[in-house]
């Protein structure tokens, strides 16, 4: 499963939505995901991917933005290990 697939699945599980409805490029508000929903999802993603979300505010507008952020954090983490 790609990062995007996994992110969609986690969002769906956390927020009682259907993964197939989570269009990666539509604004999150249009998918029924508010700021608290994003915070809840980020917390789950930290556990699932073993990454730590940055404390500084990263602009997140879409599901794709979330997947991209997770990819970036994973590569930074693996880079740091290497």
């Amino acid at each position: 499963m790609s990062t995007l697939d996994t992110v969609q699945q986690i969002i769906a599980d956390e927020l009682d939505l259907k993964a197939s409805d989570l269009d990666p490029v539509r604004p999150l508000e249009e998918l029924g995901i508010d700021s608290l929903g994003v915070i809840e999802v980020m917390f789950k993603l930290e556990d699932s991917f073993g990454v730590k979300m940055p404390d500084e505010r990263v602009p997140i507008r879409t599901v794709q933005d979330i997947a991209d952020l997770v990819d970036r954090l994973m590569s930074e983490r693996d880079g740091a290990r290497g």
Partner: protein
Amino acid sequence: MPADRPALTLRRVAVTGMGVVSPVGSSCDQFFDNLLAGKSGIRRLSASFAGGLSARIGGEVEFDPAVHFPKAKLGLLDRFSQFALVAAAQAVLDSGMALDDKLQERAGVFLGIGMGGAQTLEAGYSELFLQRKERLPPFTVLRTMNNAAAAHISMDFGLRGPSYTYSTACSSSSIAIGEAVRAIRHGYADAALAGGAESLFSLGTLRAWEALRTLALEDAQDPAASCRPFSRDRTGLVLGEGAGVIVLEDLESARRRGARIYAEVIGYGAASDAAHIAKPDMAGQVRAMRAALEDAGIAPAEVDYLNAHGTATVAGDVIETAAIKQVFGAQAGRIPVSSTKSMHGHLMGAAGAVEFVAAILAIVRGAIPPTANLRVADPECDLDYVANEGRSGIAVRTVMSNSFAFGGSNAVLIARSLEACHRA
């Protein structure tokens, strides 16, 4: 204040809906049927951590959150807020009230909460301290804050009047109901959802109570009989969880809409001990009962049933008995006094509310629930405690409910059947 309301006209306040979530049942009928039958909801706690406790008993509520809330919403709700919302929904449904835009604008929420989201906080901190996690679940603050339950009720029902949370330990929800009555009386709101909620069965909270040495020992033969108010063999209080919420309305509005009116709240008295942080004080209790009687404008002898604070601590029951004698004088022995805590346990922030519901149901059903487990007479507790057997088929017109708190914040509520109010 709208111009059409004359100043300084005190309004009367009706109870038109009631809801309970309790260890003896989560509907008013089941709740009162079990109380009247003397059935206890106290048992061994189910949690795995309970095994090490010296008192592994409590009044736990049988409750499946998934039945009541979608998963996405549940993430924001500690168990105390879940209970409060379920009790509020019962009460609103029961009232038959149409919450239109005009009423929503003038309706408030008044809740009593003891320790709020103690379970959420403890679970979060255990991840921090034990699992060395660096992050707490993101909704820890929103779930834990004491006003979370009132906020969710206000949001769910669109109530845009005042929303208050009172935290005065064991008297929290009696004070919440009393203050809601005053707000309606004085015109700050036309209706209110008032009551309280509590849920504190977590290892840390139970250990904290254990350390205070006020909890009952488990009855080896019958854990359900561990709470024995006014009985000489009493050993302390048993914690319970749950919620009670009532719908309060301006009596005239309630009449106009043809509401079924359970009772009128005619008296509320609050008074502080100003004496000791934990030890109950007779003078403070007497002041609160007298203030409520004075507020109601009735003589002590008019009280047909008193739901006692009656926690089953060794000292507390003696002091409450003495306070009742002082207030009721020669009549004290003639008034049925019972502690339903013997069956549902001490619901802390929710105690006053569920006990006031029990008292109002005594009016509605013409029946008085017993003090269960009163096995051995105590010469220092010599009132009519309705020992072990409930009484049915009697006219109960006026009821009093006592709540006396750690910290010395005492509150007493008096309700009366509307028929009795007309005669008066």
